[in-house]
C-alpha cells in the first residue's frame, strides 16, 4: 500500500460510494456533538490526510467490544470504519493468521513508527510473568509493551482495558491490569463499557484518525462528549426519581408504570456512559428502557460492589470479609448505643459501690 493513501481512497476501494461517505461524515460529526460545519471538515480530513493505521490488539477479554463495534446501529458507520481499520491488524477480523499476521505488526512498526494508533481490547495479566495470556508464543503483556513503544496514542476499548473488568474482579488470580497501569508513557483514551456503545467507538476512532488528536478527555481520561454525564442526568425516568416514585419489585405496579429503578439497584446515578442518550442498537433501547437497572458496567470495579440489585453497595470490612455498607454502618451506630447504655449502667453501679469511699475522701480533703 502506498504511504500517501487516504482513508477516502481506502473506502472507495471497498465500494463505499461518495454519497455514503458524506452521510457517514455528517452522522459521525453529529454523534460527536460537533456542529454541522464539522461534517465538511471531517470529510476534508478523511479525503486528504494520509491514512493513520490502527492496530487492534486483544488481551484478556470476551470480544464483546469487537462484537458491539461490528453491530453498529448504522451499518454504514460499521462498513466505513471497518474498511478504515481492517487493513492493518485485528486478530479477530483480519484474514491473515499465524506468522503472516504477526509479520504485519513488525511491518507497521517499520513503516509507521510513532504514527499508528494502538486500539487495545482486553488487558494483560501480569501474574506469573504474564503467562495467563499467551499470543504467538509470548506473553501478551510483552506484545502490548512492544507495540505501545512505537504507537502514537492508545485507545483502551471497554471496561477491561480501561478498568480491569471481570477478570480483574476479586481475587483477580491472574492479576489482570488495565492498560493505563501498564503503559505509562503514551496518551490513553479510555472508552469504558462492557461493551462500549458502537456509535461511541466509531465516533472516538473517527475523531482520532481524522483530526489527528485526542478527543477532549475528562479527568479519568474518557472522551467528554460521551462520558461527560451520568446516565441518571439524562435518564427519561428521572422525573419519577425526583418525584420519589420507585419500582420496589420487578413485578409491581411501579414497574408496569415505568417508575425509577433506583431502589432495585440502578447504578445510573454513579455511571458515566452514553446509554441514556445514544442508547443501544441504533437507538432501539437501553437497559433502563427495557425495565432493568444499570449495572454500572462502565465504572471502575463494578463487579466488586455487591449486589446489582441494591442501591447501597458493599464494603470491605476486614481482609476478604465484605458486607453491605448499610449493615456495617447500622451495626456501628447500634454498637455505640449499646456501649453507651452499658457504660451508663456501669456508672450507676460504680457510683453505688463507690459512694462510701468517695465520701471518706471528700472529708479528708476538707
Amino acid at each position, binding site marked *: 500500500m502506498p504511504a500517501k493513501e487516504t482513508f477516502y481512497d481506502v473506502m472507495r476501494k471497498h465500494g463505499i460510494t461518495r454519497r455514503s461517505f458524506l452521510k457517514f461524515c455528517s452522522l459521525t460529526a453529529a454523534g460527536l456533538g460537533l456542529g454541522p460545519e464539522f461534517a465538511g471538515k471531517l470529510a476534508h480530513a478523511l479525503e486528504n490526510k494520509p491514512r493513520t493505521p490502527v492496530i487492534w490488539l486483544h488481551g484478556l477479554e470476551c470480544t464483546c467490544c469487537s462484537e458491539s463495534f461490528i453491530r453498529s446501529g448504522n451499518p454504514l458507520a460499521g462498513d466505513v470504519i471497518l474498511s478504515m481499520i481492517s487493513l492493518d491488524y485485528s486478530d479477530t477480523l483480519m484474514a491473515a493468521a499465524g506468522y503472516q499476521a504477526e509479520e504485519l505488526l513488525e511491518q507497521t512498526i517499520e513503516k509507521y513508527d510513532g504514527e499508528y494508533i494502538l486500539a487495545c481490547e482486553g488487558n494483560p495479566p501480569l501474574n506469573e510473568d504474564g503467562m495467563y495470556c499467551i499470543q504467538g508464543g509470548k506473553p501478551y503483556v510483552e506484545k502490548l509493551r512492544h507495540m505501545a513503544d512505537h504507537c502514537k496514542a492508545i485507545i483502551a476499548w471497554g471496561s477491561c482495558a480501561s478498568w480491569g473488568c471481570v477478570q480483574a474482579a476479586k481475587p483477580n488470580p491472574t492479576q489482570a491490569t488495565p492498560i493505563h497501569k501498564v503503559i505509562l508513557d503514551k496518551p490513553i483514551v479510555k472508552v469504558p463499557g462492557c461493551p462500549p456503545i458502537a456509535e461511541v467507538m466509531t465516533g472516538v476512532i473517527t475523531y482520532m484518525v481524522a483530526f489527528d488528536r485526542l478527543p477532549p478527555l475528562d*479527568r479519568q481520561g474518557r472522551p467528554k462528549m460521551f462520558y461527560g454525564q451520568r446516565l441518571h442526568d439524562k435518564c427519561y425516568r428521572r*422525573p419519577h426519581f425526583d418525584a420519589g416514585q420507585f419500582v420496589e419489585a420487578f413485578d409491581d405496579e411501579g414497574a408496569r408504570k415505568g417508575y425509577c429503578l433506583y*431502589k432495585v439497584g440502578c447504578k445510573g446515578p454513579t455511571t458515566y456512559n452514553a446509554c441514556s442518550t445514544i442508547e443501544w442498537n441504533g437507538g432501539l433501547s437501553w437497559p433502563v428502557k427495557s425495565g432493568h437497572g444499570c449495572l454500572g458496567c462502565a465504572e471502575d470495579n463494578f463487579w466488586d460492589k455487591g449486589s446489582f440489585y441494591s442501591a447501597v453497595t*458493599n464494603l470491605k470490612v476486614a481482609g476478604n470479609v465484605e458486607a453491605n455498607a448499610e449493615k*456495617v454502618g447500622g451495626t456501628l*451506630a447500634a454498637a455505640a*448505643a449499646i456501649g453507651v447504655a452499658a*457504660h*451508663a449502667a456501669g456508672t450507676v453501679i460504680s457510683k453505688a459501690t463507690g459512694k462510701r469511699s468517695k465520701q471518706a475522701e471528700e472529708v479528708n480533703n476538707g
Partner: protein
Amino acid sequence: MASSGVAASNDEYTGSLYVFEAPVRVWHWVHALTLTVLAITGYFIANPLPSQTGEASDSFLMGNIRLVHFSAAMVFAVGLVLRLYWAIVGNRYARGMLTPPFWERVYWRRMWHEIKMYLFLTRKVAKYRGHNPLAMMFMWLFNLWLAIFMICTGFALYSQGAGADSWADTLFGWVFLIEPSSQAVRMWHYVGMWVMVAFAIVHIYMVIRADVMSRQNGISAMIDGYRRFKDDGPRSPQ
C-alpha cells in the same frame, strides 16, 4: 503551657469562667442541627421512602429531600470554615479543635487519667476549663477530620449532578482521582454518616454523664459560654 492550663493557679478552677465564645456556641448548635438534617436526609437518599403514587408532576419528594440535604451541606461546610477561622482568632479554648496540644506531656497524662476514669479504673475526677483531653481528641477526629472527609466526598458526589464545569467539580473533583469509582465514594460517604451518628451518640452520652458526674457543668456551658465549677477544690484528680 497556657493552652492546656498547666501553669494556671487554682483560682482559675473556681467559681465560673467564660470559656466558649459566642461564635463557638453558635457553630456548635448549627453543626448539631445540620448534622441531624444531613443524617436523616442522607439516609433517605440511600434508602428512599416508599414509592409515591399519582402523577410524577404532582410530587417532588426525592428532589426536595436532596435539596434539603444539599442546602444543609452548604451550611455545614461554611460553618466549619468559619469555625476554623475562629480557632485561629478566638480564645485558647477555641483552638483545641484545630490543634489539640499533642506535643504536651501533660495532655497525655490527663488523657490517661480520663481513659482510666471511663474504664472505671479510678473514681477520681479532675477539673477542666475547656474540653478534657479525651473530648478534645474526639472533636479533632470527628468534628474536624471526619467532617472534612464528609465535605470532600459529599461535594464530589454533588459535582456529578452539578456538571463537569461546576465549582464543585473544580474544587472537589480530585476525589475521583483517588477513588475513580463513584459508587465507592458514595458508599464511603454513607459509611461516614454512620460513623458520625455513632460519634453523636457517644458525645451526647458523655456530655450528659459529665454534667451529672463531673466537677463542672457541661450542657449549660455550650449555651451561655460559662464554665461553672461545682467545688472549690484543686483541679488535680480527686
